[in-house]
Structures are given as structure tokens and as C-alpha cells.
């Protein structure tokens, strides 16, 4: 089905004669986890079906090239984060943000309970993806080079963290803290948002210019996420099935931790000029944007 749709090219046509559901392939930018809960709820709870869509969720993994898949018509919708979206747009990938799941960036740094109390206090060794925009930002902001903070690559395993009380590592609120707690550690999560790094998270992206069904899809997605926040059990059960490493107990912990990040202060699914401008200027200040594409087109306003 993949190749067939790719061959018919371009966006899905909705001609007057077409009365069936619109097929949407949605590419996740990680393994099935709670951060995509609302999307799974959308399928399982019939939200998408009622809105006239047939959604296939395609899990990803490390380095998932979701926006490239979107732009090459292998999927109709892709999940990404705001910083990645802006960087890809700068590279001439014409995509746009339709709806964000996370108001507050789920990114941050995880330390042991007895460790640093804030970003200013961070010292020693931090496991973090070297050269990533967040790493570059934090290093610049807190003068890590001067302080001699030792950045080592993050292997994806919290083993080193668990073995060393003084260790710090990058983390997503939707993952590492709960896993570490399940292994008996007491952790503190330093929110990247508090440090000034606050991209919208788990953004639903579509091609630019957006396909005609986008608004309906966004509405259905919003309803689905509201349903998920109210009762995550059905979607979480599915996630557990797809990803055995996400046990029900773990998902319960994660769902609880991630809720304030979903809703934030502006409310679920909001996108403001202020936030986008802030992200844009931060990236520009780091020298990562150079092609001057109009920021207004980066996200959709309904």
C-alpha cells in the first residue's frame, strides 16, 4: 500500500465522487510510547473514523526521518518537534505544523535527587547527544565549556546513570525518569523549558501548503487527545502491546508525569506567535537558520 500511494503521487485527492474514508499514514518519531497516546486513542476510540479518516500509525525509532517521509509522500502526516521543524524548513523541506501535543517541551536533564538543583548547578559529566540543538543551547547558556562540564554521548541506556550518583543525562519526561524510578532511583527532572529551550513537542506536521483535510484531522486529533487525557487506559494498553518494554505500570507513571506538559499554560493544542518567534530567534542566534523562510508559514492557524 505504501508504494501504491507513493506512485499515485502528491496529496490524497478528495473528489466529490470519493465517499470513503481518507487514508492517512502517520509516522511517529520514536517507538510507540505514551507521548503519542492521543494518536492511538484517535484510532482506538473511533475519533478519526468518525471524522472520515482511516489512520495507520507507523512507529519510528532513533533518527526517524519523519519529515522526509512526509515530503516524499510516503506518509501523509508526521510527528516532529518545533526545533526540528524549523531546521528542516530552513533546509527547503516545505512542511508546516498543524497541531502540537506538548505545550511544554518534554525535554530536559535528569539528575539524582541529591544532585544539581537547577541548570546553573550542573557540573561534572552529562550524557547528552553531542551537537544537538538542545545541547548547543544549554552549553552556550550555562557556559559548560568554561565550567569544564564533560559532555559524553548518550547511549540510550540509563545503566551508567543508575550506577553513578553524580551522573546527569538528557531525558524526556515521557521516558527516562519513570524507568529510573522503577529501578529504584530517586530522580529530579530539570525542565528544558525552564532553561529557555521550549519547542512544542509531538507536533503533527503536514506538507506545505496543507492538504484540504488538515483542519478536520486536527479537530479529530484534538478530541482524541482530550479523551486520552481523561482516560488513557485503552491507548496505553495498545502501546503496551506494541512495545512490551512499556509495561502498564510504567505507562501509568509516565501518563501522570506528562500531563502538565501536555496542557501547559495556554491549554492543549494552542500555538502562539510568541512561542514560535522565541524558538525561531533562539535557533537563529545559534546560527542554525540562514535561509530566511517566512515564519508565518511554519504553523497553521485555524
Amino acid at each position, binding site marked *: 500500500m505504501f508504494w501504491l500511494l507513493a506512485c499515485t503521487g502528491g496529496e490524497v485527492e478528495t473528489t466529490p465522487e470519493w465517499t470513503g474514508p481518507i487514508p492517512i499514514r502517520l509516522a511517529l518519531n520514536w517507538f510507540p510510547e505514551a507521548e503519542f497516546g492521543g494518536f492511538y486513542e484517535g484510532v482506538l476510540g473511533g475519533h478519526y473514523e468518525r471524522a472520515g479518516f482511516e489512520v495507520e500509525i507507523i512507529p519510528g525509532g532513533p533518527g526517524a526521518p519523519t519529515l522526509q517521509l512526509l515530503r516524499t509522500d*510516503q506518509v501523509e502526516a508526521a510527528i516532529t518537534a518545533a526545533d526540528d521543524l524549523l531546521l528542516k524548513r530552513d533546509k527547503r523541506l516545505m512542511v508546516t505544523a498543524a497541531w502540537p501535543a506538548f505545550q511544554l517541551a518534554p525535554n530536559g536533564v535528569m539528575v539524582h535527587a541529591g544532585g544539581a538543583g537547577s541548570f546553573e548547578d550542573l557540573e561534572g559529566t552529562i550524557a547528552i547527544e553531542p551537537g544537538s540543538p538542545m545541547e548547543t543551547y544549554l552549553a552556550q547558556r550555562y557556559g559548560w565549556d568554561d565550567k569544564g562540564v564533560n559532555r559524553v554521548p548518550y547511549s540510550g541506556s540509563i545503566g551508567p546513570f543508575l550506577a553513578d550518583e553524580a551522573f546527569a543525562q538528557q531525558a524526556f519526561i515521557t521516558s527516562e525518569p519513570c524507568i529510573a524510578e522503577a529501578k529504584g532511583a530517586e530522580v529530579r527532572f530539570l525542565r528544558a523549558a525552564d532553561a529557555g529551550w521550549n519547542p512544542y513537542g509531538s507536533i503533527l506536521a503536514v506538507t506545505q501548503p496543507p492538504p484540504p483535510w488538515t483542519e478536520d484531522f486536527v479537530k479529530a486529533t484534538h478530541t482524541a487527545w482530550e479523551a486520552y487525557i481523561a482516560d488513557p487506559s485503552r491507548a496505553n494498553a495498545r502501546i503496551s502491546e506494541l512495545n512490551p518494554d512499556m509495561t502498564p505500570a510504567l505507562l501509568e507513571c509516565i501518563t501522570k508525569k506528562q500531563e502538565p506538559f501536555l496542557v501547559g499554560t495556554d491549554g492543549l493544542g494552542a500555538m502562539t506567535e510568541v512561542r514560535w518567534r522565541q524558538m525561531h530567534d533562539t535557533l537563529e542566534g545559534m546560527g542554525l537558520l540562514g535561509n530566511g523562510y517566512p515564519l508565518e508559514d511554519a504553523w497553521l492557524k485555524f
Partner: protein
Amino acid sequence: MKRALPLLVAIVALAAWWAVAARMPPVLLPTPLEVAESAWTQRDRVGEATWTTFLASLAGLGTASVFAIGGAALFQRSRWIERALYPYALLLQTVPIIAIAPLLVVWLGYGTPVAITTSAIVCFFPILTATNQGLRAADPAQVELFRLYGASRFQELRLLRWPSALPFLFTGYRAAVGLSVIGAIVGEFVGSNGSPASLGNLVIRSAGSADTPLTFAAIIASTGLALILFGTVRLVEARTIGRWQGGSE
């Protein structure tokens, strides 16, 4: 007694592993028992993953063989072609797989095609050089013999150069086989999204959820795969060329 030596080493190694691991948290170094337990409880997943990676490695090996052996035969035909294309073959060898894997996902989609491609890329060069060397290794006296009796180039290739190349080929395959498994797994790190399950994906996932016993189980499975393939090469080698290298050369 000689046969028992590797087994003895294995037992000693296992005991040493257990002794060290018993003092450490399982998340850093699980004991052999914990690894076995993990592999057993998740045997469906591990089994499916091992099978997927196995098929991908085989397919990668097969694909690489077609291009590498064909390429070497072409090089044998014309020094010009060899000079023109050899640098690109070398280039293929130096490409960092982990870097191009996301690109492969865009072109091929998630799943086994990416793993097959990375596996093929990684074992292409060893097979090419082995075959290349082998085709040139025919005994000069035997070449003269063929020429004397008016053999065509194709007859020379089929009846002399190809059999002469086989010992070299087997040497090349002994190396290529292990590489094919590694290549598939590296491709799976990025290119596999878990359906179907694959060893590369399993390693990444288990690391992410700090399920180290499962990581070890996956690693042991991949080693087992490589060993099986290696053993198969050795077996075929013994059956085919083993007999003719008995006494004199």
C-alpha cells in the same frame, strides 16, 4: 581432548562472568541466569527478532555476492573497467552505515529492505577482493595448458579460473559472513521500527528501557547467528575444496 578445549574455555568464561556479575546491579552486568531468564520469558520476541535478522543477513550476503562476484568477473575481463570502478567499490566500503541508514529509510521505508542494504554494503568489499584475487590466482602453468589447447576465454574462466578462485572465495566469505550480521543489525538500529521485530531494534529498545538482560540476550543471539553462518561456510568449504587439497598442492 582437543575438541573439548573450546568447551572448557567457554565454561571457565561463563563462571568468570557469573562471578563478576553477581556483584553488580543487573542493569550494568546481568548474570548468565538473568540473561537466560529474560530470553526465555521473551522468547517469542527474541525468536522473531533473530529470524528477521537472520533472513536480512542472508539476503544481504546474497545481494553482495551477486554484485561482488559479477564485478570481479568483469574486472577479470578488462583492466580498464577495474581501474575505472575499483575506487567506487572502495568508497562503498568506507561509507558509515549508521549515517546513511536514515536516508535508506526515506528511500526504502522501514523494515528489512534497509537491513538487507546495509548488510550488503558491509560485506560487498571483502567478497569482491577475495574473488578478484582468486580469479587472478590460477597457476600460470595451468593457464598455459589451457591456451595450448585453444580454450576460449569463457572456457578458461569457467573451467580454470573459477575453481582456482574457490579457496580465496571461502576465505573471503569467512569474513563476510560475520560482517553481514553486523551490517544488518546496524541498519536495524535506525531502519527497523519493531514490526517485524529485529535484533538491532531489540538492542535499542532494551537499552532504552534499561532491560540489560534482554540486551545481552539479543547480543548473544546475534553472535550465535554469525557463528552458524561461519560454521556453514566452513562445512561447505570442507566438502568442496577440502578433498582436493589433501596431499600435494
